[in-house]
């Protein structure tokens, strides 16, 4: 056998050996990862966030899959803890080889997971608000459907002014957006010649009586809360017991239905909440309602529903199954002049003509650094233990 023939033989053998794995790669399921807080302080939201993603994937698979392949969901729990989230993200990236990680909730968690995502060129879609997240050098591998903290606090600050505040206060736990929240509120107070006091407390304490005593020394007439549900429930109780008679506004994820169920109605009476308004009139929202079997969809499940649709459509548009494909094609399918679609199944059918995905959380248009644009907010007023719409922006 000549050298050439031996080379040919070796080449043919290698090709024959590699063929099954290459063919296998073409038929292997496409993996998407969900990294939601199934436990910990975000545990109220995590399970339904995951179920919304799962529902989208089921619908796509029933309609024939993506690029002729089945899509599977690999779900992990962040435990609302950066350390646990990093371990889970490593598993999703290194072991499962997911194209995208969807649904990180707490800003501290997203911040911790972000470098793993962009270093492995895995797309990360989050619902976290800290401004610093999209300012990281993520090379387009991060986007969020949650408005950033600066926009959120500005919106809440303007609301407080409209409601007649003259002495502002911010009290919340240590988070990546705590300092920024205080800064934004101080700026608003300075522009209007109002007083402003702030206090950052430690998470996971069983009482905030002393912190309440301290913040009430400035006699605020409007307090903005900056915690999560577990500490907010303690704080609201302590404020009420201390006899605070002013107004309170808190993020809807902190003053959530679980908090309203837990606290006596007197404690939450007159408290305002605000949140990015889901597109409640949209077909996408109705689809999430059907998937989850609930009437009121929380904003985070609406957002993770959009994460799943966006990932699938971006991979279909780029005819690839990697994080790179999603990163390159995300804005191609989420904004522009294409036909409006509200779910991946319709989007896959209409892809060739150009599409613009508009989902359950809103239009899903992203700026250059991955921040959502065009978010509207809804303010709710709690009365008799029930939150009802007060105003919209």
């Amino acid at each position, binding site marked *: 056998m000549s050298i050439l023939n031996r080379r040919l033989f070796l080449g043919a053998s290698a090709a024959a050996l590699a063929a099954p794995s290459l063919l296998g790669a073409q038929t292997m399921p496409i993996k998407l990862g969900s990294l939601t807080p*199934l*436990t*910990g*302080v975000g*545990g*109220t939201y*995590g399970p339904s966030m995951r179920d919304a993603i799962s529902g989208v994937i089921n619908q796509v698979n029933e309609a024939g899959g993506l690029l002729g392949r089945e899509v599977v969901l690999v779900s992990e729990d962040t435990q609302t803890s950066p350390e646990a989230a990093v371990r889970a993200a490593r598993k999703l990236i290194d072991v499962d080889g997911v194209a995208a990680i969807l649904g990180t909730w707490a800003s501290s968690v997203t911040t911790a997971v972000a470098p793993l995502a962009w270093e492995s060129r895995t797309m990360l879609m989050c619902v976290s608000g800290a401004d610093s997240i999209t300012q990281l050098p993520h090379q387009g591998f991060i986007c969020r459907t949650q408005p950033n903290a600066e926009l959120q606090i500005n919106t809440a600050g303007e609301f407080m002014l409209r409601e007649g505040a003259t002495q502002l206060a911010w009290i919340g736990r*240590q988070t990546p957006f705590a300092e920024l929240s205080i800064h934004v509120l101080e700026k608003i107070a300075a522009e209007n010649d109002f007083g402003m006091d702030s*206090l*950052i*407390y*430690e998470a*996971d*304490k*069983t*009482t905030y*009586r*002393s*912190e309440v*005593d*301290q913040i009430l*020394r400035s006699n605020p007439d409007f307090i903005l809360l900056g915690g999560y*549900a*577990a500490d907010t*429930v*303690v704080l609201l*109780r302590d404020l*009420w*017991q*201390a*006899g605070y008679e002013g107004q309170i506004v808190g993020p809807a994820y902190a003053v959530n239905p*679980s*908090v309203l*169920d*837990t*606290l*006596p109605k*007197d*404690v939450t009476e007159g408290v305002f909440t605000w949140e990015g308004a889901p597109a409640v009139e949209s077909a996408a929202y109705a689809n999430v309602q059907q998937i989850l079997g609930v009437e009121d969809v929380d904003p985070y499940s609406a957002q993770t529903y959009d994460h799943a649709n966006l990932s699938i459509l971006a991979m279909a548009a780029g005819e690839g199954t990697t994080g790179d494909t999603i990163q390159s094609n995300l804005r191609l399918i989420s904004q522009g002049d294409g036909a409006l679609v509200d779910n991946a199944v319709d989007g896959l059918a209409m892809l060739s003509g150009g599409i613009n995905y508009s989902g359950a959380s809103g239009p899903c248009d992203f700026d250059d650094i991955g921040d959502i644009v065009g978010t509207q907010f809804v303010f709710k007023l709690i009365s008799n233990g029930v939150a009802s719409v007060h105003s919209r922006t």
Partner: protein
Amino acid sequence: MELLPQLLINGVIFGSLLAIPAIGFTAIFAVLRFPNFSVASHATIGAFAGYAANVWLGLPTVPALLFAFTTAAAVGCISDEIALKPLRPYGALTAAIASIALTIVLENMVRLGFGNDLRGYNLPLMRDWRMYGVRVGPQQLQNLILALMIMTIVFLALKFTRTGKAMRAVADNPELAELKGIDPTFVGRLTVFFGMGLVGAGGMLLGLGTSIDPLTGFRFILPIFAAAVVGGLGSIPGSVIGAMVIGIGEELSILVLSATYKSAVGFFAIVIVLIFRPRGILGERKF
């Protein structure tokens, strides 16, 4: 500084509540000679048992507290028998690590049964009373009285009952106690029963003024441990003093530190004690 009297009152009330699980923790250490970190999940179990008794069965606070005590005590005995007792011959470190694993298992069992949602007791909430510029909540005062009653019962039981004396004997010198006819295994079980019962009752008392979730006990583990170490691991009066030091120290710390660093008081107290008085304020085995 005008906040000082208020912070002192807040600290005393928090310290007295913290003392109950700290007594349980240190009693178990005194007799079984290992730090049982599963007190975290047993505090959670007590809090949820109390919740079930109060909200589902409609029982008032004191019967619900007894139910919390009994449930946590029973779970403590069973879990100790299954998970920790077989590992104790391998050393205190092995048993301590196993107790951390146990607390994760038990916490997740609570999560499986009750879910992640926050839950509140069905108790009337009242505004605080104000006297001489300081405020005290009626619920807080009731909790304080209950905590003091529990502490009194524990001290009387240890001093005057045969069981209490047997526990003290085993804590002081297990070999000598065995020579006197005291069964250390039985006393160990009794200690776990009463220790975990106290932890469960403490978990409910701490939960009464707030809300509970599967992480309720986990939030207390550092102050409980710090209280026991500061007072002297194995010393019951020491754990009460340690709880007061931690409780008052945490509250007063916000006069000089950001409230973000409250828990650092516990660590700081442990470091100071380990440097200047490694056996704690009262020393160990002052059962």
